[in-house]
C-alpha cells in the first residue's frame, strides 16, 4: 500500500513540472507588463527600468526559468511583485479559508446529493423521483454566479435568515458553501440514482430480498456500497477543484480564498503569485487523485486483492 502510494506520488512529479513550464511560458507570452500595475499614472522611464531590473524581468527567459525552478525546489516560491510578501505566506494565509469552504461545500454536496439519489432510486418513475431529477437537472444547469446571487437575495436580503455575504463565523459559511456544493449535489444525485438502479437489478439484490431482509437494509447494506466507486471519483475531483479556489463564489460572497488571490494576481500580472497559486492548485488536484485511488481500495476489496496478489 505504501509502495503504491509512493509510486503515485512519483508519477506526479512530471505532471507538476509540466504545470510549472506551461504557466511560466504562458505568463511571458500573454501581453501586459507587471511593472505597469506597480507604477501608477506618473512615473519616469528610469523607475520602470529600475523595477524591471530588480524583478529580473529583463533576464533571458531560460535563466528566469531555471532560477524559478531552483527556488521552488528549495521551497521558495518567490515574493509578490506588488506587496513584496512571500507567495508561500499568502497561500498559507488563504488556504484555511478555502479549505473551510471546500469541506462545508462537500458536506452539503454529499448530504443532499446522496440522500436525493437514494430516495430517487427507491421508486423510479414516481412523483418524488421525477421531482428530484428535475431539481437535479436545474442544479447542474444553473450557473454558479446566478445561484449565488439568488441565495444572497432570497436568504440574505428578503428573508434575512443569514448575513448575505462576508466572512467570519459559521453563519457566513452556509450560503457560499451551498452555492459551491449544490452543483456537485445535483450531479451526485443523478449519478447515485443511475448507479443504484443498475446495482438493484443484480442477482445478489434479489438474493438479499429473498432472504427476507427489510427493504432499507437491502438499500443501505447491499446496494449502496456498490455505488461508491463512481461516487468517490466525482467527490474527489470536485473536492480537488474546490481546494484550488472557487473564483466566482469567493467574489460574490467576499470570501478571501485562493481563487481570488489568483484572480487578483492575474489582473495585476503579479507573476510569482500566479505561478505559486497555479502550482498549488495542481498539487491539490494531484493529491486528491492519489487519495481517490487509495479510497477505491478501501471500498472495493477486489482492488485491494488484485494489488496484494501482484
Amino acid at each position, binding site marked *: 500500500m505504501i509502495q503504491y502510494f509512493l509510486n503515485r506520488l512519483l508519477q506526479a512529479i512530471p505532471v507538476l513540472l509540466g504545470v510549472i513550464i506551461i504557466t511560466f511560458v504562458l505568463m511571458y507570452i500573454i*501581453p*501586459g507588463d507587471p511593472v505597469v*500595475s*506597480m507604477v501608477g499614472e506618473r512615473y519616469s522611464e528610469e*523607475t520602470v527600468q529600475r523595477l524591471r531590473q530588480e524583478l529580473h524581468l529583463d533576464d533571458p527567459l531560460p535563466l528566469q526559468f531555471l532560477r524559478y525552478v531552483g527556488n521552488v525546489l528549495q521551497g521558495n516560491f518567490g515574493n509578490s511583485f506588488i506587496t513584496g510578501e512571500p507567495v508561500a505566506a499568502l497561500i498559507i494565509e488563504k488556504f484555511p479559508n478555502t479549505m473551510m469552504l471546500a469541506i462545508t461545500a462537500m458536506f452539503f454536496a454529499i448530504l443532499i446529493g446522496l440522500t436525493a439519489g437514494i430516495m430517487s432510486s427507491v421508486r423510479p418513475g414516481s412523483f418524488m423521483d421525477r421531482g428530484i431529477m428535475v431539481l437535479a437537472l436545474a442544479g447542474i444547469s444553473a450557473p454558479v454566479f446566478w445561484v449565488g446571487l439568488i441565495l444572497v437575495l432570497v436568504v440574505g436580503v428578503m428573508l*434575512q435568515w443569514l448575513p448575505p*455575504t*462576508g466572512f467570519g463565523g459559521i453563519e457566513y459559511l452556509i450560503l457560499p458553501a451551498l452555492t459551491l456544493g449544490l452543483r456537485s449535489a445535483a450531479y451526485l444525485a443523478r449519478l447515485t440514482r443511475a448507479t443504484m438502479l443498475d446495482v438493484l437489478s443484480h442477482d445478489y439484490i434479489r438474493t438479499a430480498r429473498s432472504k427476507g431482509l427489510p427493504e432499507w437494509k437491502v438499500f443501505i447494506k447491499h446496494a449502496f456500497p456498490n455505488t461508491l466507486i463512481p461516487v468517490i471519483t466525482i467527490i474527489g475531483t470536485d473536492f480537488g477543484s474546490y481546494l484550488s479556489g472557487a473564483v466566482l463564489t469567493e467574489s460574490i460572497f467576499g*470570501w478571501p480564498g485562493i481563487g481570488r488571490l489568483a484572480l487578483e494576481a492575474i489582473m*495585476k500580472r503579479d507573476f510569482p503569485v500566479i505561478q505559486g497559486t497555479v502550482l498549488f492548485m495542481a498539487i491539490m488536484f494531484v493529491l486528491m487523485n492519489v487519495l481517490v485511488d487509495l479510497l477505491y481500495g478501501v471500498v472495493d476489496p477486489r482492488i485491494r486483492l488484485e494489488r496484494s496478489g501482484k
Partner: protein
Amino acid sequence: MTIAYSADIRGFDPAFATDLRTGKIISLVYDNLVRFDADMNLAPAIAHSWSVNNTGRIYTFNIRNNVRFHDGTSLTINDITKSFHRILDPQTSSPQTWLLERITGAKDFMTGKADHVRGLQITNDSSLVVELDEAFAPFIQYLAMPAAAIINSNGIESLSTVPAGSGPWRLETWARDGELLFSRNKDYWDTPPITDNLRIRILSEVMTQSAEFETGSLDILEVPQGEIEYWRQYNYDQIEVEELNIWYIGMNCSRPPFDDLRLRQAMNYSIDREKIIHILLNGSAALANGPVPPQLLSEVTELRYEYNPSRAIQLLQEAGFGNSLQTEIYVAGGSGMFHVLEALQSDWAAVGITVEIKRSDWNVFKTAVREGKPDLYYLDWFADYPDGENFLYPLFYSTESMKNRNRFSDPDIDAIIIKIQRLPNNAERQRLIADANKLIVDAAPWVFLWHSKTIYLTQQWIKGFQPSPIFNANRYMNISKMAQE
C-alpha cells in the same frame, strides 16, 4: 461603522501608494506635513504653520511637538526627513519620486552623488526648511499626497502589511481580500474620530454591496453607476459629490488620421453627450467643457463643442475624409462603460466614422497607451490634488503626453503650463489656467466627455458624512452612528 471597497489595497507602504484606494487608506493611518480639508483647502497637519519666501523656492515648516505614532513614540523632525529620503532612495524603488525630486540636491541623492538631500534642512527641532531648485507652486500640494506621508522610523521593515503612521485610525486587522478593521486613535493630536471603529469590507460584486447595504450591514454605499435608478425608489439619505475628474477619449495627435485638427474637432461635434449622460449615466455626470473641472476654474468655460453632426460632416469633408474613415478605440475591460462606448460608436457612425471597439484588460490597455499604439482610447483622470495644474501638466505637457499618453505637443501650451507651475496661487495664475484650458479645447487633443459624480447613500443612523471631492480628504472623522433601529 462599515463601508465597502470593490477591491483590496496594495498595502501600507506610502512609497507604493499609486492607486486611489491605497491612497485613501494611507490618509487614514498616516499624517502628512499638510493635508486637504473637506473643502479642498490646504490645512495644517504635522506642520502647524508654514511659509514660503518671496522667491517661491524656500518653504519653512513649523512642526507640531505633540504628534505620536501609533506605537507611542513621538514624531520628530528626523522622521520627516527620513521619510522623504526613503521615497527618493533608489533602494526603495518608489514610483512616486516625482513628488520630491524638485528639492535641491534630490537628484544628486538619487544618483548616489550625495548621501543626503541638501535641500532638506533641520534648523531646530521644530522647524524644517525645504529648498527647491526653482519656484514650483504645486509642491506644497504634493506634500499632502500619500507618498509624502510621514513614517515611523521604527516600523519600516514591515510597511507592506503593517502601517507605521500617526493618523486618526489605527489598523487592527487586515484579512486580505476580506476586510480592513481600524479603531480610532484616541491619542490623535487633533480631535479623534467620533466612531470607535471603521470597517472596510472588500466586496468585488456590485450586487453584493447593494445587498449588504439593504440589510443594514453597510452604513454607507457608493452607488454603482448601473444601480442609480434602482436606489431612487428608496428613501435613503443621498449625497452627490462632483468629483475632480475628467472622462475623455484620447486621440493620437502625432500621426494620421488624428493629426488633423478638423477630424479631432469633428469627433467632438459628432457625439450627443447630453443624451448619454441623461440616459446611460442616469445623470451622474456633468458635461465637460474642457479638461479642467469647473471647481478648479475661476471663470466659466463656455461649451465649445455642442452636439452638431452637420458641422462634423462639414469638417470631415473639408479634411478630405468623406465617410470612409475607419479606426479603432481601445478600452480597458473592467471599466464597465461598454454601453457608453457603443453609444459613441453609433454617433460617430452617423457622420461616417467607423470605430471598432477593442477591449482588453487594464494591464494590456495601459501598456498599449504607453506605447502609443491606439489611435483612440477611452480613459479617465482623477485629481491627485485640487489644482488645475494637475489636469494640465501630466496630461498635456509635451514630454508627458509624448511619452505616456496621446502624443500631443504644443509649445505655446507648454510655456503656459510652466508659468502656472512657477506662479504662486494668485489671480494671474488662475487666468493662465483658464487660458490653457481654452487653448486645449481649441486644439482638441481629446474628445472631452464629462466629469463624473459619485452618489453616496447613508443609512438613517449615520450622521455627519460629508464626502470631499478629493480622495485623501475623506477621513471619516465626524461621522457618528446612532443606535441602529
